[in-house]
């Protein structure tokens, strides 16, 4: 693609020169041009985002997992540990700024087996401080946290769901 665009541009330049300057044949070649060739981004999930083992109560509650620390904060429920932030690693073009986009609307976790149950997860956030950017070796590591909403007397079982992470230049 780069080659094609460049050829077309050269042709345009040649035409402009021909129209504007008529008889001149030789072209001085001192202009500068910049192009950034971006490497396709590769994105890999390390650790699952895990809200741990939870004992629900008679009222609805939440478990908020902090992206930076993986610390889970329960409200109206009891936690037995096991919570972790999602971990991600991306590779791309060194020193390039990127935008990380997470789900803006809630996702659903469903029971893997046994009686049916669902919970929602929202408030997705990363632990990136300031501008997300590939380092000088083209790597970018970050974590994802979110908030799980546990219903009153939530059906017991193992729940799973998926969320989207997009990294873009």
């Amino acid at each position: 693609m780069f080659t094609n665009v460049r050829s077309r541009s050269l042709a345009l330049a040649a035409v402009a020169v021909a129209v504007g300057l008529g008889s001149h044949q030789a072209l001085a070649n001192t202009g500068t041009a910049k192009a950034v060739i971006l490497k396709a981004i590769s994105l890999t999930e390390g650790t699952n985002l895990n809200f741990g083992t939870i004992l629900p109560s008679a009222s609805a509650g939440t478990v908020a997992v902090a992206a930076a620390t993986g610390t889970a904060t329960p409200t109206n429920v009891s936690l037995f540990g096991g919570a972790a932030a999602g971990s991600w690693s991306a590779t791309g073009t060194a020193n390039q700024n990127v935008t990380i986009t997470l789900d803006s609307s809630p996702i659903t976790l469903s029971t893997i087996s046994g009686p049916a149950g669902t919970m929602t997860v929202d408030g997705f956030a990363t632990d990136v401080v300031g501008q997300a950017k590939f380092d000088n070796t083209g790597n970018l590591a970050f974590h994802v946290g979110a908030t799980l909403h546990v219903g009153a007397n939530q059906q017991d079982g193992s729940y799973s769901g998926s969320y989207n992470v997009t990294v873009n230049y």
Partner: protein
Amino acid sequence: MSAKSPGRSSAFAAAALALVVGAPVALATTERGRATATIVHAIMVTEAVPMSFAAVAPPSSGGAIVLTTSGAISGSGGFIFRGRPTPGAFDARGMPNHPASVSFSSGNLVTGPGPAMRLGAFTTNNAAPVFDSAARLSFAVGATLVINPNQTPGQYTGTYAVTVNF
């Protein structure tokens, strides 16, 4: 410098601009990550050690014998105790650092070759039980067994229910 040069230069710039503008769509990457959670039942209570009064030789009049949560056994005059009595022991899991209450079933009977004996007046070694920071609570259980007059010798067994609440 020739006037043609800037024209060529801007053409290159246009090419570079086209690349940058076109790049994001082709190079964005989206992956699906997994989110998980486990919901557990309410409090779990597990019997670690069954309660045992060991061997008892009662007087003909019968009477009540008391097993404490430390395993001591006693009765009114005439009782002879043999073997090693053990209090019941239980482990519970609940809510970290939360107070719990322990209660017992009533009307429990211990049955065997002779008339059933009543088991009751349960005690625990924890007057104000609280789940620890790992949501665990362990406690011992003592009780009183009422032996009937002229109780038939033999092995007697029974059950009682322990309820932990918070």
